């Protein structure tokens, strides 16, 4: 309790007035005449006592009146959990991302969250949310403390990458539904890498108050990690000096220059170690070659020996599938061999996989079985032997993939094999408006995937396209368009397989793509995409999704899928195994997968390396985000307390009591005065 205007308490000096009137001033009574005192007897002693009692009552009323009036002006208030506080939704968000595994961060955060939950009023509603790779809502807004504590206790540290942007996005959606004021308590290590690049993405709605509880009190601890690993997903020849090697980048965060020992582990056996000097806060590359592995899937890891403050991120996992080189069937027109030359050269230049290209003319493909090839390329061949075309359709429906490149001959024929649609009007840009450039490129498409494409549109801006066949893009994904919007690269799922259609040719007549470096990368990624080797081995990041079956086939027409997680358990139920189309890789480790098309894969899953940077956000950023006026957790706690406990002014009630006291005082005074006049 306190006073909002304490200087008005000086008015308490006015209490001297009733004190003087009642206690200091000499009492005088008005004598009452009577006919005779013959029958009266004096009663002095009891009379004084009675008078004193009566005057004390009046004195108390008058003193209370003065006191209450002064208190009302001083504006007293009490701090309490008001009905307003009860109407606020307490949102407890516990960060369980990978970085919370460092030290005692997660335990401390959970402890603080439990303490916050215990301090809330019993009637206040609360909701528990965990912030890992995904924003998971653990409870609905409830006031049951037991359920809330149980939900909070059940949260375990995960391997995902926290994103405050996703959290704010979820809270915005929640705030629209709840409509009540929300107190968002975030218990996290406040990683700088969790903040999105644009601060506007973390601006909270007006009815949400953010209170940050950072578990990082000291300076950022030094941490080394394997930032990236480059290794062949599929290796045919371990003695190939160009491909049989592993390159790893050791990265240090808040570290001094030091020498680190890095080991290559294959199937739980250390087969090589390297020492590398890692500069302060810098990176160093370490290479292991050759990569001597056995046939089949090899579970590999590059590990930093010696340990540090965050040992969980000292290893990077990957798998290498050793097999004989896979064959690729390249079908071309009889009079055109240039495309085969370019494609084969580009595929040989690629380092990630090993393919052997078998180039045949379309007329010679009658007796070939496509199922023996990793994928099939149809280069400007719109007329195929019917037997081979039927075999290709069967091949694609069972999971095979075909790349079709439309050359100049497509415009002369009514249909495109496998694609189904009729080719439309062909654009000969060399005669119309000059060469066309590539406009839109979907860099998320596996065959075009680039993490950070440059300003030259990932290398595609310089490509000149002279001739393009117009294709109906229905039921397909357009991965690349020309500047006039004409689709250039399309992907259509058919059965369990895919058909990738390039609306121009693979030679240098319809475009100059084979002359650009991006052609090699495109062929490499397309080959990996079409052969499925990108899915079967290598490494993924936690919380990425893996497509287990085609989305076009009806459920139940193909076999079940199987997933065995890093702990050796099967996370899918039987029903899920029959119907699931994609699977989220939520744990770090090796997943063993059997796809619906019968192919097996071992996929290494690594945490997002941004989690290894344990540097927290700057205090300024934290203050800006939470809107706290002063730095430090103490102030934030005080702000939180101020939100839960609001000052309630009592002046109105005090004034009401003062009014009652005034009325009572007036009534008593009037009664006493009238009595003294009427007596006898």
């Amino acid at each position: 309790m306190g006073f909002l205007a304490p200087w008005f308490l000086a008015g308490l000096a006015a209490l001297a007035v009733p004190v003087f009137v009642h206690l200091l001033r000499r009492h005088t009574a008005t004598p009452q005449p009577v006919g005779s005192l013959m029958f009266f007897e004096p009663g002095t002693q009891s009379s004084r006592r009675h008078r004193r009692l009566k005057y004390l009552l009046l004195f108390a009323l008058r003193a209370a009146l003065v006191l209450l009036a002064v208190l009302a002006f001083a504006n007293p208030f009490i701090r309490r959990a008001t009905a307003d506080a009860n109407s606020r939704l307490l949102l407890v968000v516990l960060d369980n991302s990978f970085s919370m595994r460092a030290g005692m961060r997660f335990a401390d955060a959970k402890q603080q969250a439990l303490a916050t939950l215990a301090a809330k009023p019993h009637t206040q509603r609360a909701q528990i949310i965990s912030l890992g790779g995904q924003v998971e809502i653990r409870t609905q807004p409830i006031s049951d403390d037991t359920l809330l504590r149980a939900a909070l206790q059940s949260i375990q540290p995960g391997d995902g990458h926290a994103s405050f942007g996703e959290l704010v996005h979820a809270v915005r959606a929640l705030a629209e539904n709840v409509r009540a004021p929300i107190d968002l308590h975030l218990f996290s290590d406040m990683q700088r890498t969790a903040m999105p690049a644009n601060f506007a993405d973390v601006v909270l709605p007006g009815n949400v108050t953010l209170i940050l509880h950072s578990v990082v009190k000291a300076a950022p601890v030094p941490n080394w990690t394997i930032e990236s690993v480059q290794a062949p997903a599929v290796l045919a020849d371990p003695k190939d000096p160009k491909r049989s090697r592993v390159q790893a980048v050791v990265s240090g965060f808040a570290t001094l220059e030091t020498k680190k020992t890095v080991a290559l582990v294959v199937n739980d056996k250390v087969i090589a170690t390297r020492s590398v000097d890692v500069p302060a806060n810098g990176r160093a590359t370490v290479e292991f070659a050759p990569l001597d592995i056995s046939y089949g899937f090899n579970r590999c890891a590059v590990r930093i020996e010696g340990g540090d403050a965050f040992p969980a991120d000292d290893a990077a996992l990957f798998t290498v599938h050793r097999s004989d080189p896979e064959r690729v069937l390249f079908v071309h027109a009889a009079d055109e061999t240039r495309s085969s030359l370019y494609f084969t050269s580009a595929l040989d230049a690629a380092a990630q996989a090993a393919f052997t290209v078998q180039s045949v003319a379309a007329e010679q493909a009658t007796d070939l079985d496509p199922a023996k090839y990793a994928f099939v390329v149809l280069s400007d061949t719109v007329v195929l032997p019917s037997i081979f075309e039927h075999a290709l359709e069967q091949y694609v429906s069972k999971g095979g993939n075909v790349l079709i490149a439309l050359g100049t001959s497509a415009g002369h024929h009514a249909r495109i094999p496998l694609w189904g649609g009729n080719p439309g009007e062909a654009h000969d840009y060399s005669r119309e408006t000059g060469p066309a450039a590539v406009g839109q490129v979907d860099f998320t498409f596996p065959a075009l995937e680039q993490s950070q494409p440059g300003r030259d549109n990932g290398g595609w801006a310089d490509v000149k396209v002279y001739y393009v066949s117009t294709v109906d893009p229905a039921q397909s994904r357009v991965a690349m368009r020309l500047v006039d919007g004409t689709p250039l690269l399309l992907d259509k799922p058919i059965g369990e397989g895919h058909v990738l259609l390039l609306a121009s040719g693979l030679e240098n007549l319809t475009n100059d793509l084979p002359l650009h470096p991006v052609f090699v990368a495109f062929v490499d990624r397309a080959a990996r995409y079409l052969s499925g080797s990108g899915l079967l081995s290598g490494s993924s990041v936690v919380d990425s999704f893996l497509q287990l079956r085609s989305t076009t086939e009806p459920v139940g027409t193909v076999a079940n899928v199987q997933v065995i997680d890093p702990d050796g358990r099967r996370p899918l139920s039987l029903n899920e195994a029959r119907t699931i189309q994609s699977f989220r890789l939520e744990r770090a480790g090796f997943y063993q997968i059997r796809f619906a098309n019968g192919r097996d894969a071992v996929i290494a899953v690594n945490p997002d390396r941004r989690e290894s940077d344990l540097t927290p956000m700057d205090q300024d950023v934290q203050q800006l985000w939470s809107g706290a006026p002063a730095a430090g957790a103490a102030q934030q706690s005080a702000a939180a307390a101020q939100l839960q406990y609001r000052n309630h002014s009592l002046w109105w009630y005090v004034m009401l009591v003062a009014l009652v006291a005034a009325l009572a005082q007036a009534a008593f005074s009037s009664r006493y005065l009238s009595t003294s006049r009427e007596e006898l």
Partner: protein
Amino acid sequence: MQRFLDPDVLAGISSLDLLAKTVVDGFVAGLHRSPQSGFSQEFTEYRAYTPGDDLRHVDWNLYARTERCYLKRYRGETNSQLTILLDASNSMQYTSGQPAKQSPPSKIDYARYIAASLCYLAIRNQRDAAGLIVFDDDVREYIRPSTRPGQLARLFAGLERAEPRARTDFAKPLQHFQNFLHRRGIAIIISDFYDAPDNIIRTIAPLRFHGNEVVLFHILDPQELRPVLHRSAILVDLETDRRIEVVPEYTRTSYRAKIDSHIEALRSGAHGAGIDYQLLLTNQPLDAALREYLFLRQADK
């Protein structure tokens, strides 16, 4: 008519003459409801005729109806002498009423109303001689009993002049009264009798021995009989100016017992001495006093 006897109503009448006329006329009109009643020749009884009786008194109408001879007997009228002794000491000016409200008049006013009404009734209605003695600790005014014209005006003037002062002392005015007493009559003493009952009776009793009918009209304010005190107060004696502080508990218990005892002692002492006693509260109508006078006058015949 009864409301004209109410002291609250009479307090609004300033003239004692008009007041007395209002009171007495209202009172007498109330008595004369039957034509057979009257004060001039009052029928008393029938008596059987015996030889030697005056035949003028035989009721011949009755004889004609019943053939029996009866005599009609009447009570003859006599003139009486009324002397009113009015106590005009300071204690008589007490009133519990508020000047602005309709409340009991002071004791001296109430005594004036009674005295004036009695004088009016005696002189105008009964043809009696009426006199007045106003006293406190001495005789302040003496008007001899008379039936002469103007006597009533003199009595009213004497009453008007009777303002309260000094203390009460019965001995001196009663001695004075006895000195002027030549024939027996009715003596009415109007006072609040704030004295010891024995002393009062002892002083007044000699009047009775001279054949006078003596009446004590004990005038009290209702507050004097049953005082209500909400809180302790300082009380001042109007006669002695003595002050004491009194608590309400006392007025509810001991005071009531004392004054009841005082009244009872006065009443029993008066009866023992053959004196009529009448307690009159200032909020009561005046007819009780008038009726008492008529009753005494009848008994006197």
